[in-house]
């Protein structure tokens, strides 16, 4: 077997199996670092052995066995290992037996591995952990990103990220955060917490638009992959479906939303032929089966809004009335000035510009939006639609210093030039929210 072919097989196994192996080892040993190290060693071993022995029939089982054996080896060695083994024995075996015959049972394959992965995701996303720690630990333990990769994705030094991961794991152990799927009465809010972590991860990647930020863009793929895993593990949870649908529908536009020079292209001006049809279809299907369960939540509503855009053959065919209605529902479930601002855009685009502007004016007093460039940018665009070029230009100028990155700044500047030239083009910049 050729080396590249083996490398591909190992890469595929890594994506598929990393989280499972780590999750199972954490449950059996209670030691997060040991679990990561042994999983890593199993993949290193695969790279060494598979070119010679061939890729095993079941790579996952092979890797799990190797990682498990490594863990047993380590536990047999050293004083810390002895303690861990005792603890692992206590947790895994009711008779608290640590003799050698009992050891293989610590790593047997009889119990449900899928449950382990759920345990891991709920523990990584426990609401008592710091939010940035939740995101980092999920990427490390479940997705298998290295500390260096996560650090690059969040634009912090590797040492900072290493400290964040250590601190988060330390709190799990020291504060007694249980390694389990929450009981039924906690499940809805904890599930929402897990989805929030995945969506935050997705948005980190989605907001990275330029070529130099490709590493950050990889966060979208990881978030979608984890979203798929969660949906597979909780097939009856409509919000898990909704969140996955939402991410897929946004992701489907990735090739159309940034131009050749890294400039932002608004939803209206995007070449819809470049939208990813496969992802759109999957997103729409997921949304449909989620909505059939009649337990509407914020992710399903946001996905439904994204679906309105995905279904419209052209910007002009967009059903803005439907979108405005969905934003009104979303605001009930998730009151936020940003949701309200998006509602204002939808109302205006549905033909009631005055009403839309009135909502924007109301929001001007909200301290939470004081530094939010999209408030002024939205006002500018609505004024421009109304034909008030001078007022629009003033609002664009207000928005400029608040723009978070060069991409947005360049977009605002180009709009500013347009209104200077008295262009009356329609704009729906905020529909890509």
């Amino acid at each position: 077997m050729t080396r590249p072919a083996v490398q591909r097989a190992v890469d595929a196994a890594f994506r598929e199996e990393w989280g499972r192996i780590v999750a199972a080892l954490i449950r059996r040993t209670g030691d997060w670092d040991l679990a990561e190290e042994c999983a890593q060693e199993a993949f290193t071993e695969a790279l060494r052995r598979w070119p010679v022995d061939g890729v095993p029939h079941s790579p996952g089982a092979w890797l799990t066995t190797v990682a498990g054996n490594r863990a047993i080896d380590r536990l047999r060695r050293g004083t810390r290992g002895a303690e861990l083994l005792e603890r692992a024995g206590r947790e895994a075996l009711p008779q608290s037996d640590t003799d050698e015959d009992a050891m293989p049972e610590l790593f047997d394959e009889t119990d449900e591995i899928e449950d382990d992965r759920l345990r891991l995701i709920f523990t990584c996303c426990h609401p008592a952990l710091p939010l940035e720690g939740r995101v980092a630990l999920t990427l490390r333990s479940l997705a298998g990103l290295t500390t260096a990769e996560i650090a690059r994705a969040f634009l912090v030094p590797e040492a900072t990220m290493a400290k964040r991961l250590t601190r988060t794991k330390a709190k799990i152990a020291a504060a007694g955060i249980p390694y389990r799927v929450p009981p039924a009465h906690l499940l809805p809010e904890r599930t929402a917490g897990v989805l929030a972590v995945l969506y935050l991860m997705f948005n980190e990647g989605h907001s990275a638009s330029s070529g130099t930020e490709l590493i950050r863009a990889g966060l979208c793929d990881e978030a979608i992959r984890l979203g798929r895993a969660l949906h597979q593990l909780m097939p009856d949870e409509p919000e898990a479906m909704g969140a996955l649908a939402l991410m897929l529908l946004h992701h489907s536009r990735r090739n159309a939303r940034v131009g050749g020079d890294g400039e932002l292209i608004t939803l209206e001006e995007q070449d819809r032929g470049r939208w990813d049809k496969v992802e759109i279809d999957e997103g729409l299907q997921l949304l449909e089966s989620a909505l059939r369960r009649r337990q509407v939540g914020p992710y399903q509503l946001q996905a439904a809004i994204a679906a309105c855009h995905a279904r419209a053959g052209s910007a002009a065919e967009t059903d803005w009335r439907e979108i405005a209605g969905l934003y009104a529902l979303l605001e009930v479930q998730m009151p936020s000035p940003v949701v309200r601002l998006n509602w204002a855009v939808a109302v205006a685009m549905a033909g009631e510009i005055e009403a839309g502007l009135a909502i924007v004016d109301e929001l001007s007093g909200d301290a939470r939006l004081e530094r939010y460039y999209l408030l002024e940018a939205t006002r500018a665009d609505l004024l421009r639609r109304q034909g008030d070029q001078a007022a629009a230009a003033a609002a664009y100028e207000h928005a400029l210093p608040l723009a978070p990155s060069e991409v947005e700044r360049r977009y605002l500047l180009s709009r500013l030039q347009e209104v200077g030239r008295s262009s009356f083009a329609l704009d729906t910049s905020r529909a890509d929210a």
Partner: protein
Amino acid sequence: MKYLLFICADGLPAPEDLAVLQRECPRWVEEMDGRGVRLLGRELDLPETAATVRVRDGETLVTDGPFAETKEFMAGFDVLECADLDEAIEVAAKHPSSWFDAIEIRPFMDGLRLGEAAQAFAHGDDSLGSVYCLMICLDGIPASPEEEEAITRESKAWGQDLEARGLQVLGHPLQHKSTATTVRVRNGETLLSDGPFIETKEFIAGIDVVSCADRQEAIELAAAHPIARYHAIEVRPFWSE
């Protein structure tokens, strides 16, 4: 696992909140004692009764008031024995203080023992004399490793001396503040935040409950603690009807 619940207050309660607290706190105590999760707990006196003790260059400096100069303060504590943090959160969220203010959950370091004096204190036994709470407050100036070692050694000796003199009710270090979780319940929803309630650089690293003759003796005991040379110790009486 054993946890300390700090009952936190953001100023004095409004009269209508106070009524709820007075009605619901005894119910909470009864329920949690019945479940066996609450080992003991007491309300502290108001923050203006506190003295904060530091020793610098051999001189004892006493300032009136709590360690953190904020309007938030610790109003009391409870010691819990819970299966895990989720249970501690559930117990904290049932305490009415979390409905108006907040409750900070801090895991103890391993090895907390509750002796006879602690049991008597738990039952509000007055034969103890005056009980004072000593809160060990680290204000962020890290001591050198050698100093840390000396502090640990001397702290142990300080505790043993108190125990020998029959003054120690209970005392144990807490896990680092980064293991803290603050619980608030708003509109029926339990909101968690990572870290201590009082977000200043000072934080509470441990508590000691001592029984002694009067406030002056409590201050002297605090001044004798090695931590007072580097950081601060807040001395506060418990609430009495």
